[in-house]
């Protein structure tokens, strides 16, 4: 603990403090603007930081990362456009809340939940990092396969009114996930002879199209020429009722645990954490029917889960030198450029820097409390005062610029447009969109791990079940699928009795 106090002393100086404040604000903006995402922002900003004091540079990473995970919730709640893939689950209940006139309450819950998740995760990073990192080593290809399957079981909560269509959407997502070069055989799949498709369809490009374009088109259909007046915005502060916060605590605890658990596994990530937390909250609820119709617990679970993933995802990177996601890889790359060698000795090489970064992950989460709410209501919500017909081209341009800078190729814009129009029509015929994205995220993970596992076991499929952790995960998957069924049956029996 001693080095944390030393590190704290270094962090609480003008440079890192102002960098944290500025970058948390910036992160909220980046997360909130559809098309911009934290990975891109950090990748673009890091080179500017190579010549800076590393603690200032890392403060910027921490702020952008934590801020943006919360920022994604703002358009998710106000416009039903998730700002990042991790905030898809936030739209499920956040937008219905806003629809009921509770936008302000939803934003506040998102803000508190993000901060709580971020703090819990940072505490885990600071106290149990090396221990948790060793734990991740027990997860081989067979275990990863089951995690992916476990994640897909959570598709159950998002299939909507028509399960057949929901599963159909998930299968479509899985199929999209197979596009591009197959890493295990070098086979190009569904690339139609196009070189740019060798890398598959970019998740962000599809997400922006699928999720942001339909609401924009609907906004255009309304062709609102005046914009909302201040009174119509309904953003009066919504104080928590007594007991309301306490009611969220179990959800926060659960979501933090899930977020940290998913976060420490390299390659899993915040997108899955939010879905799993949401699913867990719904399963635990005494009133699962109210989810998807504006239940504050849903917003709390999703937002807490995606922020709890953040600091935890740094655990394998800082303790083992294994980057679990792109942001962690960028942090390691920044540390390398500043002359450190990632690996188990990293902490001992420079406790002030590594400990300082951990402290910064904690402090930027705390900053979300202070800054998040005001940014959402004072700035973003105010955009709704612009006439809708002006918002439409503005969001379109943001989407295009965000998509274009990912790979610098115009064809991605067409992919986005195509995905958007498909998304618009699919929603109209009651095909939910979230399973498509979930399939795209989990499909490659499931396929590659199962094939790797079979290569290792020389084709023996029983290996997928005989290893203790795999078996545990398989049983957990079964429970997640069966639990809602059992619950419904029990309730029916109770109703009859």
């Amino acid at each position, binding site marked *: 603990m001693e080095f944390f106090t030393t590190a704290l002393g270094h962090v609480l100086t003008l440079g890192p403090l102002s960098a944290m404040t500025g970058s948390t604000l910036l992160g909220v903006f980046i997360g909130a603007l559809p098309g911009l995402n934290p990975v891109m922002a950090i990748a673009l900003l890091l080179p500017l930081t*190579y010549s800076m004091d590393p603690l200032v540079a890392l403060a910027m990473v921490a702020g952008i990362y934590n801020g943006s995970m919360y920022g994604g919730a703002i358009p998710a709640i106000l416009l039903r456009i998730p700002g990042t893939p991790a905030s898809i689950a936030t739209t499920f209940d956040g937008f219905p809340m806003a629809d009921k006139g509770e936008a302000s309450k939803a934003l506040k819950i998102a803000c508190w939940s993000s901060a709580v998740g971020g703090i819990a995760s940072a505490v885990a990073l600071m106290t149990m990092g090396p221990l948790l990192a060793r734990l991740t080593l027990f997860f081989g290809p067979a275990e990863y396969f089951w995690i992916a399957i476990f994640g897909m079981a959570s598709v159950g909560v998002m299939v909507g009114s028509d399960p057949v269509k929901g599963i159909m959407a998930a299968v479509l997502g899985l199929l999209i996930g197979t596009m591009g*070069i197959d890493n295990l055989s070098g086979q190009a799949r569904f690339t139609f002879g196009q070189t740019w498709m060798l890398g598959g369809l970019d998740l962000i490009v599809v997400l922006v199209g699928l999720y942001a374009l339909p609401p924009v088109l609907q906004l255009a259909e309304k062709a609102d020429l005046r914009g909302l007046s201040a009174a119509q915005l309904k953003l009066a502060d919504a104080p928590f009722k007594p007991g309301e916060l306490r009611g969220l605590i179990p959800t926060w605890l659960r979501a933090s645990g899930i977020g940290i658990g998913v976060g420490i596994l*390299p390659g899993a990530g915040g997108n899955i954490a939010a879905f799993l937390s949401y699913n867990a909250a719904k399963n635990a609820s005494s009133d699962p029917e109210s989810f998807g119709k504006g239940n504050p617990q849903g917003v709390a679970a999703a937002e807490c889960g995606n922020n709890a993933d953040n600091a935890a995802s740094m655990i*394998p990177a800082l303790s083992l030198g294994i980057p679990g996601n792109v942001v962690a890889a*960028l942090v390691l790359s920044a540390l390398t450029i500043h*002359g450190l060698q990632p690996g188990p000795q*990293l902490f001992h090489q420079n406790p002030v820097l590594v400990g300082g970064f951990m402290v910064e992950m904690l402090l930027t989460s705390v900053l979300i409390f202070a800054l998040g709410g005001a940014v959402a209501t004072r700035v973003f919500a105010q955009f709704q005062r612009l006439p809708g017909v002006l918002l439409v081209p503005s969001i379109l341009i943001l989407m295009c610029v965000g998509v274009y800078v990912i*790979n610098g190729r115009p064809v991605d814009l067409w992919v986005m447009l195509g995905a958007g129009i498909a998304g618009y029509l699919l929603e109209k015929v009651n095909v939910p969109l979230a399973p498509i994205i979930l399939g795209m995220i989990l499909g490659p993970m499931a396929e590659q791990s199962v094939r790797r596992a079979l*290569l290792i076991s020389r084709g023996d499929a029983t290996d997928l079940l005989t290893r203790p952790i795999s078996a545990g995960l398989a049983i957990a998957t079964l429970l997640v699928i069966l639990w809602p069924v059992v619950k419904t049956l029990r309730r029916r029996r109770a109703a009859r009795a």
Partner: protein
Amino acid sequence: MKLKATILGMSALVALAAPALAEYPERAIELTIPAGAGGGTDTSARKLAILLEEKLGTSIAILNVGGGGGSVGASQFMQAKPDGYSLFATWNSPITTVPQVQNVAYSLDSFTPIASTSETAYTLCVKADFPAATGEEFLAELAANPGKYTYGNDGIGGTMQLAAERIFQAKEIDAIAIPFGGAGETLQNFLGNHVDIYGGSISTVLPYVETGEAKCLLVTSAADVPALPDASGLESLGLGDKETLLWRAILGPKDLDPAIVEKLAAVIDEAVNDPSYVEFLATKGEVPNVVKGDALGDRLQSEYDALAEVSKRLGL
């Protein structure tokens, strides 16, 4: 300063009509990297770009185009204008290895070689309790137990796999290749005992050699590597001609003006040998290695031919 550079860039754009080489570069250069942000190639290129910006007096914008083992970025870059304002920072695999296993639209002729920057060997490592202590014993153990051991590598048909298979073919070894997404993932599975042998870059595994958890017994370079005293170079095993390295280079689009190539090669040479860059490379287990212009083209060609032979025998 950034603003100024941009304005300069804009006004340079207006004056584009008359390209005068003497003034090259007069606006921002776009550097395409065929890999995602944060990886080894990306970090090396970004660090080098900082030095090049200083020496060229212009800004360098970096564009990461990952996917397809580098072939997506290479194909996209192939279409760039050869005006000297589009450059390509790659490692050897997308150019010499990937075309062996994928149907790509580019060939060696699609690029103008400018200069290579650094190189490093791949290494094969095992856990401390593995029944071998030298490179020779390691290969003997593998040869004596065909099909028993699994080795992790950076993806099917990647340079790492071909580097290992070149050696295995020469010694008639049958080990099972398990392709992962990158050295980090391979390391995770190696440390967790999911694969027996780590195959990948030196810098990733180096900390675990220092803690004694891993022992690296073989490197894919002809010479030994100072950072890994237990590892045998191929020369000492009589396999000197099977050397396969990981190296990085800056290329231009086809038909780039030779005067620009020469100017860039000279500046890259200077930047790579800058003490701060050499030191940075050392932390990653790499050494500076500058081969310029046509000599670089010959190097690419001979590596391409050698790997074509290996992959044909592997049936890839």
